[in-house]
């Protein structure tokens, strides 16, 4: 599963192929195949309010084990049976609990990598950051010795070194490409973001190659910016942010909004690469990884602290995004099955309004379970929300907020 570059470069350097069940959950949702797996998980007693990706994966795995092979109906050839499960403690409980629950079906070893989530003040206490980084690096070391035992081969440290570097290189281009989206009109819509982001987050390919692709993308977006080409066919009337995960099964919904001139210019913080970090002087690749992932989560802390925003990673970044990308409004997508992507939304809504006078529209739904999303209801609120955005645009001007 996604581990925000903690474990992936290590697996790559040891030639372990990776498969990401969240990604596959989105695939199943997009292909309309998820419903049966969700029901399968429920039939096995997993409550329906749990993460759609997890239930999809549990249901799929149960079926695969029952059949003794990849289910014939599985979209895109299915997911193979894994020989190792690497769970991540970053961002949510669901993920390590879910891989543990896979133990009901799979006889595969399971390793969990943690990522500390300090509070803003606690994270900025003397020595706290270094202590956390030490802990991450230590865990990575333990993971490597486990892998070496499991695979019966040694880590090629030189290769790891390179992989870590190209991972960061990849994200650097991807980050730069996203920075270009500040332009008016915005050259890249969230839909394109969602289809390009898996390469960075689900590191199934060689990061060096991916870096090249992101670089090409950067060039393409750059030329769009230079020629003032926007992502929409219609003129860009509103610039919006989308929080958090999209309804993978109903992406069409965005096309209808695009016709109204709604351009989605920035989205989920957790899917974005970290801002570049200079680690040239850190020679130990594990320490580089530890610093990099930790920076991804806590890089915003000093500024959040100044702004007295105590939720430094999931709530504060949006204050910057919405300002930097000059959003007129925000669409919030609380997920019935995901606490992590939902917990902060009300708070973000409140902070954005108080600090930046940017309104939000709440549309409830789910990532995988299409029964929980009602596009018609959502679209019916769009018109009124335009009026709201117009209203706050005026207020922002009056308050000298600038966009």
């Amino acid at each position: 599963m996604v581990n925000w570059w903690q474990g992936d470069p290590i697996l790559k350097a040891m030639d372990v192929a990776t498969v990401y069940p969240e990604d596959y959950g989105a695939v199943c949702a997009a292909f309309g195949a998820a419903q049966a797996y969700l029901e399968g998980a429920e039939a096995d007693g997993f409550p329906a309010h749990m993460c759609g990706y997890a239930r999809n994966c549990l249901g799929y795995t149960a079926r695969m084990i029952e059949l003794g092979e990849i289910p014939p109906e599985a979209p895109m050839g299915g997911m193979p049976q894994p020989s190792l499960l690497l769970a991540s403690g970053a961002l949510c409980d669901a993920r390590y609990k879910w891989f543990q629950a896979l133990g009901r079906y799979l006889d595969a070893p399971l390793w969990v990598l943690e990522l500390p989530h300090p509070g803003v003040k606690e994270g900025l206490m003397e020595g706290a950051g270094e202590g956390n980084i030490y802990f991450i690096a230590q865990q990575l070391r333990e993971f490597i010795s486990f892998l070496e035992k499991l695979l019966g081969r040694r880590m090629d440290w030189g290769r790891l070194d390179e992989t870590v570097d190209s991972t960061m290189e990849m994200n650097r281009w991807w980050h730069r490409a996203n920075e270009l989206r500040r332009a008016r009109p915005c050259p890249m819509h969230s839909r394109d973001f969602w289809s390009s982001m898996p390469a960075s987050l689900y590191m199934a390919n060689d990061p060096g190659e991916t870096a090249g692709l992101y670089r090409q993308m950067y060039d393409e977006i750059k030329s769009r910016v230079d020629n003032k080409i926007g992502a929409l066919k219609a003129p860009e009337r509103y610039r919006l942010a989308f929080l958090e995960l999209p309804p993978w099964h109903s992406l069409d919904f965005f096309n209808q909004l695009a016709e109204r001139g709604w351009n989605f210019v920035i989205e989920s913080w957790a899917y974005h690469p970290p801002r570049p970090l200079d680690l040239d002087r850190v020679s130990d690749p594990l320490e580089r990884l530890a610093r990099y992932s930790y920076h991804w989560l806590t890089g915003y802390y000093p500024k959040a602290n100044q702004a007295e925003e105590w939720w430094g990673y999931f709530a504060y970044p949006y204050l910057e995004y919405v300002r930097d990308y000059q959003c007129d409004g925000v669409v919030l997508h609380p997920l019935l099955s995901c606490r992590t992507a939902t917990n902060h939304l009300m708070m973000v809504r409140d902070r954005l309004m108080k600090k930046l006078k940017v309104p939000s529209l709440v549309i409830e739904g789910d990532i995988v379970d299409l029964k929980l999303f009602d596009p018609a209801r959502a679209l019916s609120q769009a018109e009124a929300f335009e009026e709201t955005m117009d209203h706050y645009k005026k207020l922002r001007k009056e308050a000298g907020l600038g966009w």
Partner: protein
Amino acid sequence: MNKVKIFTAGIDLGSTMTKVLILDGEGKSRAQVTGATGAEHRRLANKVMAQALGQAGLSLEEIGYIVATGYGRVNVPFADCQVTELTCHARGVSHLFPSARTAIDIGGQDAKGLKIRDGKLVDFVMNDRCAAGTGRFLEVTAETLGLRLEELGELSLKAASKVEIGSTCTIFAQAEMVALLSQGRPLAEILAGLHQAIASRVVKMVTGLKIEADVVFTGGVAQNAAVVQAIKEKLGHDVLVPDEPLFTGALGAALLAREIALKCLANGKTIPDKERRLEEARLYEDY
């Protein structure tokens, strides 16, 4: 031990209907009566009982043992004991269909799935919080359209295709239906959509039990052929429906009453003989 002749009764005080069934000394049904559990009838569960006694030509004292079940079981002053509708349904179902392993029951306000092994209830699921996908759905529909409950199913089976009903809320499905009608969608297709909606909700809930054949479908809603059909389609195999699905719970209750009574007698004990009053029943205790 079956030499002893003893009458027993089951009363199923459901959220919508009150059902009474009396078994004779041989364990055969001697009387079965239903009444609506409406706002004012509910208190009059005793009336339904009295009617059943009249039908059977018996007096209350002649009934050896009475088991109350259903939503309003908690306070039936003339019952000897209360048993949940889950156990009673399971009992009724396995009496009627000894091969049953799964039962689906849809009543006025609840829907449940029962897992049965060797005639015994071993697991169950039921709705709570939200009455979507229950008989209430149908009642509201019938009321809105000015149709009789009995007509809904047949009408719907005539539909060539079905409309997708989005609302899950029982109450709003009605509004949606009205809207669809005003858009000129044929009534039969809308009804087909409604029946589908009930079936998928219930089947989704029951999947939690890992459905195994034979599946029996009971409760008032099982009288609706369109829901039966829709459930068959969703499950992908046949379901068995008793001749009188409404009485399954009352039958189970009466059978349990009989078992308890016979067991007492076989052990040489007298049947627990508590004072019975044929008076108002309450729905739940104040607490």
